[in-house]
């Protein structure tokens, strides 16, 4: 067993064991510290070199963690984060409490972004033609390029940019356009997220983003918009929503209409499965109903809206009526969300409804992106330009257009025609294959930059570590063309902000770096006049007829997005919240639809759309809209550097034609011979009626109290029980708040060095997650009841796992922790058999040794890396407890409530998990353990778990 960086105190200056030669040399230069490990287990190791710093960097205490505020952007809009580093080695990403989009939490993406930094497949140096060139040569190459383009003002110079909100990128682009007035830039993103802005423009003439305050909303209607999984506000919205779910009196109610089951659908109090073509009609029907109900106080145009054609099915109408009634009843405290919808009708109806109903619960903000209307269209323009032979040089910083581009556009062939194609890329993806010049993209944790949050708040991106490879940020790359000498990100950044911040620049700059944001940089809400005639006009336009037969529904993947995280093992192995798939995607059908087509789990089909085909395995999914085929994008993505690796899943972009990208299209399925083996983390989907994930209808809470009490009742034991005199560590998990976003699962992996086992071992049932969010379906397959259940070691006071261990490898601390001592474990696995919660994980193989040497640099030095043949499990993040204990002991103080945060608690966007000591009677955990909703999992086994669950409250909609 080896600890990641050798961390017995006197060894902590060292970088980890098993560092590959190349990166070790790099790290010598970077950190000025390196270590060669004595073989673990070899009882007489050779002299063990220790390499202290020659000059101690400022603020570094070897072995103690450092924390820096920075920011991570997805689709160009940011989440503020705080990054933990040991000796300049980033090991963990946490949320930034000061940041409006984080509120101290992060999602799974932010957590997993860390491992991308250490991806062994990363591009390491600039590639030119077949070979590679050094940094200097590349800069020279770019200067020459600029010179070539200067005479004709950059005609033929095209930019294919990723969406960005970075002020400094904006400024650099302006300089670039000034230098090359004839150059053209396209901002491309695979999925269109601008429908909302366009809807607002229709209504107000301005591009405006809707910012909802769910904490002010009693009723939320979400149309085709998984606001819990996607979008720059997902963390904040989830948090605000969850804050209104725990107290029966002030509970909000969530109506959802969507095609596939999403997190928000699983949380919904009333859910309507609807085909994509039905959603716009549902939206406008809802508007009609509300307008009608509000009567005279609404603009006449709205009341005159035509009925949906073709009319909605009965159950859909019932849903619309019920939700409309509820909305109207809570006027001023009701919100209609359509954040993620790409349909302008839905967006426009939602906009109108919010104008009528939301009051203070919704604000309108100017968009923060440089090119708000960016979408798939940009690529079409570019390809046409290439077709006209106008493009001489193409600088591509957008994400893999060849892979994500419309299937019928021929992006690959077009780009291959470009004489000079310069691509900025993290990995050698499918575009890289046709790019003449391939520039490694710097990871945010090794770059300087700035980026805006959804509300315009500016965050500074600061590096935790010098670039591992010869990489560039988008900013630096653009600067090589915009300025006659390419500047460093740092210089560009300061150059931009010095004048803006004026006199007290240095102090404000330092504060901005510390806080992770520039105070007061948020945009002010605007209150425009709405042109109701325009709204009504747009909504009265007849909708295209719904396609015949099955409807295709292409969705961004909750884990790996549209392929940005294809090569991220932490996300790939993390099970999808609903499908519970790891290392796989599937073609989702409602079980009824599947039956009617003679399809079952894992049967193979050929999906064809507009003549484009892809072969996919089927997964019947309860709650899926009948007649709708959902496939997740982002899989089947080839990464050249790892040709030896299996390509994960099938590529749904192969059927994403321009038509399919712009609206509902028909899909046809043809059953193929043979089956498929899914990498399923959870196989049984029913809780068998067992009281595992308990929920109570808010209005019935008083009657149900007895049942809940029964679930936490203590049964007599025959022997005297140990009295825990000191701290009594305990946890409470509020199922009302848990939205199943999987952030905790990834955070736990990052914090505790949980190894990746890979697809095959997952299929053999050997995944290693210490913490899993189980998903149970109940009820009708078309309108199922979805329950999430986060499950980790319950730290039973009378733990069944302990008394069966023959070697005292799993025992109890006098503070009630169920301790797993890896170095004592001999692997009888008896503890796992006797654990009623089955939360123990076993190293069937030497999984840790299979971790690439670079990725081992992400190890948390405070946690032992487990060797082959030992059991492991959740430790309540004991390393954090001990760290705090030592600090407090030295200060001569007691540990206070809230001092210790477990990794899963810290990351949780909805604060569903709380940790503390029961010895503190006022502590948050004590309070929650005393809550009426509290119950013990399998309490009747007399395990006396220290983790308590709080039953989930539901708020059923009346009339449904």
């Amino acid at each position, binding site marked *: 067993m080896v600890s990641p960086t050798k961390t017995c105190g006197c060894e902590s200056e060292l970088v980890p064991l098993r560092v590959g030669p190349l990166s070790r040399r790099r790290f010598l230069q970077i950190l000025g510290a390196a270590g060669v490990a004595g073989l673990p287990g070899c009882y007489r190791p050779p002299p063990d070199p220790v390499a202290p710093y020659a000059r101690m960097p400022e603020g570094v205490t070897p072995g103690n963690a450092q924390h820096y505020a920075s920011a991570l952007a997805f689709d160009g809009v940011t989440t503020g984060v705080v990054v933990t580093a040991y000796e300049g080695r980033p090991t963990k990403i946490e949320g930034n409490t000061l940041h409006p989009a984080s509120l101290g939490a992060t999602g799974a993406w932010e957590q997993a972004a860390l491992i991308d930094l250490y991806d062994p497949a990363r591009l390491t140096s600039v590639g030119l033609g077949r070979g590679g060139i050094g940094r200097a040569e590349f800069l020279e190459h770019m200067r020459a390029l600029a010179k070539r383009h200067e005479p004709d003002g950059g005609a033929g110079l095209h930019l294919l940019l990723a969406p960005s909100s970075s002020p400094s990128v904006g400024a650099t682009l302006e300089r670039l356009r000034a230098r090359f007035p004839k150059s053209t830039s396209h901002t491309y993103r695979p999925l269109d997220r601008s429908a909302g802005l366009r809807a607002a423009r229709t209504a107000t003439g301005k591009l405006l983003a809707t910012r909802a305050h769910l904490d002010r909303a009693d009723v939320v209607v979400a149309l085709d918009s998984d606001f819990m999984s996607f979008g720059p506000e997902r963390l904040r919205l989830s948090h605000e929503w969850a804050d209104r779910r725990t107290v029966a009196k002030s509970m909000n109610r969530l109506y959802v209409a969507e095609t596939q089951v999403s997190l928000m659908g699983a949380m919904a109090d009333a859910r309507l499965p609807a085909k994509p073509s039905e959603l716009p009609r549902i939206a406008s029907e809802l508007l009609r109903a509300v307008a009608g109900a509000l009567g005279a106080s609404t603009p006449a145009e709205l009341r005159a809206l035509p009925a949906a054609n073709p009319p909605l099915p009965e159950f859909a109408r019932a849903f619309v009526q019920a939700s409309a009634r509820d909305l109207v009843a809570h006027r001023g405290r009701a919100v209609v969300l359509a954040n993620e919808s790409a349909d302008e009708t839905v967006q426009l109806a939602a906009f109108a409804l919010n104008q009528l109903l939301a009051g203070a619960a919704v604000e309108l903000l100017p968009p923060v992106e440089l090119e708000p209307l960016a979408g798939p269209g940009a690529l079409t323009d570019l390809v046409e330009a290439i077709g006209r032979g106008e493009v001489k040089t193409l600088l591509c910083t957008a994400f893999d257009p060849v892979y994500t581009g419309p299937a019928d556009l021929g992006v690959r062939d077009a780009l291959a025609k470009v004489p000079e194609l310069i691509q900025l890329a993290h990995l050698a993806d499918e575009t890289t294959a046709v790019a003449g010049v391939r520039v490694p993209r710097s990871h945010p944790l090794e770059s300087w930059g700035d980026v805006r949050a959804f509300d315009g708040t500016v965050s500074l991106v600061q590096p935790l570590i010098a670039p591992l490879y010869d990489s560039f940020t988008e900013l630096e790359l653009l600067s090589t063309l915009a300025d006659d000498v390419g500047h460093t990100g740092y210089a560009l950044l300061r150059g931009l902000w010095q004048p803006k911040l004026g006199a007290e620049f240095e102090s404000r700059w330092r504060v901005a770096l510390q806080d992770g944001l520039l105070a007061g940089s948020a945009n002010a809400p605007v209150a425009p006049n709405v042109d109701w005639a325009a709204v009504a006009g747009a909504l009265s336009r007849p909708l295209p007829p719904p396609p015949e037969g099955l409807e295709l529904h292409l969705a961004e993947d909750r884990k790996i997005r549209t392929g940005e995280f294809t090569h991220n093992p932490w996300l790939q192995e993390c099970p999808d919240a609903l499908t519970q798939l790891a290392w796989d995607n599937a073609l989702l059908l409602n079980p009824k639809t599947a039956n009617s087509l003679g399809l079952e789990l894992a049967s193979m089909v050929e999906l064809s759309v507009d003549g484009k085909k892809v072969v996919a395995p089927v997964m019947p999914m309860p709650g899926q809209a009948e007649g709708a085929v959902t496939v997740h994008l982002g899989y089947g993505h080839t990464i050249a550097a790892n040709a030896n690796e299996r390509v994960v899943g099938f590529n749904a972009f192969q059927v994403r034609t321009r038509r399919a990208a712009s609206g509902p299209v028909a899909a046809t399925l043809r059953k193929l011979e043979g089956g498929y083996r899914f990498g399923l983390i959870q196989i049984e989907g029913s809780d068998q009626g067992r009281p595992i994930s308990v929920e109570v209808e808010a209005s019935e809470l008083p009657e149900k109290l007895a049942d809940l009490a029964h679930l936490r009742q203590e049964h007599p034991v025959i022997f005297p029980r140990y009295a825990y005199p000191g701290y009594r560590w305990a946890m409470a998990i509020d199922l009302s708040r848990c939205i199943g976003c999987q952030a905790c699962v990834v955070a736990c992996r990052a914090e505790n060095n949980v190894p990746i086992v890979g697809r095959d071992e997952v299929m053999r049932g050997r995944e290693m997650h210490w913490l899993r969010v189980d998903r149970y379906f109940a009820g009708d397959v078309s309108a199922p009841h979805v329950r999430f259940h986060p499950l980790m070691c319950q730290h039973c006071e009378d733990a069944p796992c302990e008394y069966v261990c023959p070697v005292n490898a799993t025992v109890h601390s006098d503070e009630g922790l169920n301790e797993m001592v890896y170095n004592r474990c001999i692997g009888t*696995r*008896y503890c796992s058999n006797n654990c009623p919660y089955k939360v123990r994980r076993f190293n069937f193989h030497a999984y840790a040794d299979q971790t690439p040497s670079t990725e081992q640099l992400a190890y948390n030095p405070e946690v032992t890396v487990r060797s082959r043949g030992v059991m492991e499990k959740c430790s309540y993040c004991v390393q954090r407890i001990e760290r705090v204990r030592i600090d407090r002991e030295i200060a001569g103080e007691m540990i206070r409530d809230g001092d210790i945060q477990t990794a899963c608690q810290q990351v949780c966007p909805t604060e569903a998990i709380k940790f503390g000591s029961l010895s503190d009677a006022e502590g948050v955990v004590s309070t929650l353990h005393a809550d009426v909703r509290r119950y013990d999992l399998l309490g009747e086994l007399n395990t006396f778990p220290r983790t308590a669950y709080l039953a989930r409250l539901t708020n059923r909609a009346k009339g449904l």
Partner: protein
Amino acid sequence: MEPQATGTAKSDALIEGEQSNLSLHQSLLRPVWQPPGIRFWALMGPATVLTGIYFYSAFLTVTRGIGEWGNHIPVAWAFGIVNFVWWIGIGHAGTLISAILLLFLQKWRTSINRIAEAMTIFAVMCAGTFPLLHLGRPWYFYWLLPYPDTMHVWPQFKSPLTWDVFAVSTYLIVSIIFWYVGMVPDLAALRDSSPKKYQRALYGALSLGWRGSTHNWRQYQSVYLLLAGLATPLVLSVHTIVSFDFAVSILPGWHETVFPPYFVAGALHSGFAMVLMLVIPVRWALRLEHVITGRHLSALAKLAIATSWLVGYGYAMEHFINRYGGDQYDVHEYAARVTGHYAWIWALMITCNVLVPQFFWSKKLRHNTWFLWFAALLINVGMWCERFVIVVLSLYQDFIPSHWRDYAPRLVDLGLFFGSMGLFTLLFLLFLRYLPPVPVSDMKELHHELKKEAA
């Protein structure tokens, strides 16, 4: 005496034909003195190959990890433990026949107890290897033993596995002692009739220079009786403790008070079957029909009937308690056994263990050695299924449905299972080759007593 037609064993005599001390001496030691025949090598070959497979599988397990097996979470125990319990169960009949029947003054034990004890020892050896290979880090097996380490950490004596370590090792040691002490006079007899000098030296050394003086016989008889007295509760304790591995846990299907007697009965069941499987070919191949007669075989068969009812009672109790208790987890676990994916294994278990032995009620079938042999084989299959049902089918669907998962063995599992049979056969053949398979002095004594009775 007249060798009978093979396939039947009618006689009810304990010793057939006109015998004398000398004739018994010669006929019983013949297997040792006569050079091994083609039959011996024909068995030796496959046994060696299987043993090789066994060791290769063990090598893979140790070098690559338990991952080479089919085990996973939740089924963290599977073939390894099933085989362990199966083998150790087989072992029990040996001790029972030699010790308990001795205490009960059963004359018919005499001619088969040596074979039964040898079976015990080799079966326990095979059994013992599985828990060791089964460890995630077998090279630390010694942490199971209480020795003064520099960590000041001791084994955890509340764990049934720790009890197992003591029980199984004690069982092995005591069985060997019992076996050896019983063999000392025969080794002396071998010494005194050795045709070759080196044999005389070898057996002389093994017999420790035993001489049959009155004084020695007195000591011998008292120690042998005491060892029998110790071995009897020991054999019961061993499988009781093995059953504790399961009964002490809280798992539905494991947490059952009926387990200790139920396991012991099962152990004897498989043990008698194994004795039959061994004795039938041995008496034929080594021409021992005159001392291992139909009486012995049918006595074993009758015992098998008895144990089949004991086992059947165990199954019935499981069913009854399950219904009567009505705990939802128990109910589901039992349903998953009887109707789940592996229901056929459960059915096979019932058939082989409870139904097949009922044929032994028929005297005709009891005396048909072919039938006896195949029936015994089926019983052993059934007993293996029982252990599979208990171990795997209790684990694969327990409390938390999200963690349910089916189980399938992998090649290394099979290699170890069948390989261990090869190992057993190899050891047993060597025993037949070099040691007297039937206790000579005891047979002379028995012959003597029978004559007395006759007179």
